[in-house]
C-alpha cells in the first residue's frame, strides 16, 4: 500500500538533515508502528506521507503511484488522526463531523454512530470547547474514520485517554485491521505498539535502526532465561534451553512456594535502549 525508499528530508533554511534515507513499506491490512523519541523524525515522515510537507528526496509511493502524482483524490483513500486535537471549538462534535464530512464526495459514515462508537453519543451536541482532552482525542480519532479510508495514519491515538477509552480505541483499531485497513501508527507508547503492531520500525535521529515484528525484536534482544522468585524473596535465573532437564530449576521450584515466574525477553523499550543507548521518551 505504502512504500518509502531512500526518503531524505531537510527543512528549508536548516543545515541539518532530518531524515537520512528511510526505507519501509506498509502492506494492506497491516498495522505498522513507527516508534521513536521526540525529534527522531516521526512527525516529519508522517507529514511527508500525507503530503503536508513537500521537497523530500527519494521515493514515496501510495498504491504504486508516486505521492507527487496524486492529486486531492489521495485524501479520499487516507484518514489522519493527529496527535493534537483539531476541531472548531465553537461547533459541537456533531457539527464538526458534519463539516468535515461535507469535504468528501459521496456517502460518509453516520456521525452519530461514530460518536457512539467512542462513547460520545451523549455529548454530540456539546461545543467542542467544553470537551476534555480525552473527549477531543476520541473525536479526533473518529473524524479520521468518517469516509471509511483504506489507509489510516494514527498519531498517538491513545494519548490523554483513560485506560477504558484507550482499550476501546485499540479494539476499534484491531477491528479496522481485520477489515483490511492498513494503519501507520506513530507512538512512543510501547504497550500500544506491542499490542497493536504487526511490525515496528525504530527511528533514531532520522534513521530507521531496525524493522521487525515486536515479538521477534523482543526475543532477539532479550535474555533466553527464566526468572523465578519464591515466597522468601529469593530470585534465581535459569537458561531457557534445556529448562525441563535443569535439576537446579526443578529443585528451586520444589523448595518453596513460587511467587513469580517470568521469561526474560526484552521489552520494546529495552530493545530501543540496547540499540541506541537512549530512552524512547
Amino acid at each position, binding site marked *: 500500500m505504502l512504500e518509502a525508499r531512500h526518503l531524505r528530508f531537510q527543512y528549508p533554511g536548516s543545515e541539518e538533515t532530518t531524515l537520512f534515507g528511510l526505507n519501509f513499506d506498509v502492506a494492506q491490512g497491516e498495522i505498522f508502528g513507527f516508534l521513536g523519541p521526540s525529534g527522531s523524525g516521526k512527525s516529519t515522515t508522517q507529514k511527508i506521507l*500525507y503530503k*503536508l510537507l513537500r521537497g523530500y528526496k527519494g521515493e514515496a509511493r501510495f498504491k504504486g503511484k508516486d505521492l507527487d502524482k496524486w492529486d486531492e483524490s*489521495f*485524501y479520499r483513500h487516507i484518514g489522519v488522526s*493527529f496527535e493534537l486535537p483539531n476541531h472548531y471549538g*465553537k461547533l459541537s462534535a456533531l*457539527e464538526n463531523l458534519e463539516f468535515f464530512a461535507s469535504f468528501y464526495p459521496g456517502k460518509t459514515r453516520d456521525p452519530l454512530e461514530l460518536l457512539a462508537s467512542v462513547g460520545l453519543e451523549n455529548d454530540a451536541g456539546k461545543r467542542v470547547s467544553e470537551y476534555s482532552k480525552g473527549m477531543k482525542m476520541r473525536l479526533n480519532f473518529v473524524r479520521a474514520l468518517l469516509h471509511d479510508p483504506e489507509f489510516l495514519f494514527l498519531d498517538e491515538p491513545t494519548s490523554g485517554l483513560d485506560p477504558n477509552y484507550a482499550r476501546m480505541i485499540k479494539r476499534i483499531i484491531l477491528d479496522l485491521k481485520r477489515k483490511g485497513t492498513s494503519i501507520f501508527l506513530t507512538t512512543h507508547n510501547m504497550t500500544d505498539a506491542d499490542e497493536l503492531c504487526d511490525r515496528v520500525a525504530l527511528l533514531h535521529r532520522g534513521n530507521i535502526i531496525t524493522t521487525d515484528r515486536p515479538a521477534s525484536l523482543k526475543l532477539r534482544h532479550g535474555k533466553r532465561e527464566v526468572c523465578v522468585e519464591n515466597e522468601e524473596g529469593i530470585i534465581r535465573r535459569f537458561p531457557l534451553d534445556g529448562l525441563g532437564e535443569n535439576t537446579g530449576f526443578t529443585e528451586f521450584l520444589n523448595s518453596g512456594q513460587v511467587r513469580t515466574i517470568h521469561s526474560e525477553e526484552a521489552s520494546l523499550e529495552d530493545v530501543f535502549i540496547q540499540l541506541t543507548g537512549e530512552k524512547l521518551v
Partner: protein
Amino acid sequence: MKQSFLKLLRWDFLLLHRNNLVVLALAIATVYFGIFKLLEPLGDLRSMLLILVFNDPVVTGLMFAGVIMLFEKNQHTLQAIGVSPRPVWHFLLSKVISLSLLATFSALLMNLAAIGWRFNWFHFVAGVFFTSALFAMAGIYYGNKSRDFTGFLVSIMGLILISALPFLSYFGLIPGIYMLWLPQYAGMLLLKAAYFPVSIPELIYAYAYLLICLLYAWKQILKNLKLA
C-alpha cells in the same frame, strides 16, 4: 462543485456567527447607522460617508480574516483541512467571499442610513467587495504567519498606515497620481464613483488595478499558506 462550495460558504457564515463576528460587524454598522440618522439634518454626508465606508471593509476584511486565521491555527484545523480532498483554495475563497459579503452588507446598511438610495450601486458594491476581499487576503496572509494576536497587530501596522494614504489625495493634499500604485486608492476611487462623477480612465484604472492586485494577493496566499 457549486453545491458543495455553497455548503462551505454556509459553514463559514456559521463560524463567523459563532465567533460573534457577524454580530460585531452588524453592531458597528448599526452604530454608524444611528450616527448618520442623527447627522442627516446637516445636509450632504457623502464625503464623510466615503471615509467611513472605506474603513469598514478594511476592518472587516483585514482584522476579521486575521482573527479567523489565528483561531484556525490555535485549533489546528488547517492541518485537518489540508488532509481532506477539498482543495485548500476552496476553503480560502469561501473565507474571502463570506467576509466580503458581510462587509458589503454592513456598508450598504450604513449607506442607506446616510443617503438612502441615491448612489451608484454597481460601483459601490464593487468597491466595497473588492477592497474587502483584498484586505481579507492580507488578513489571511498575516494571520497565518503570526504566532498570536499581538504579533498579527504588529505585522499589519504598516498596512493600516498605508491604507490611510489615499485620504491625503481625497482631501486634495497630494495629487492622485502619486497614489496610483496603491490598491486602496483604486478601491476608494470606486467608492467615490458611487457618489460623485469620476472619469472613465480613472474607473478603468480602478477596476483593472484592483483585479490585478486581487489576483496577485490570491497567488501570494496560496503560495505562502502554511498548513502544518
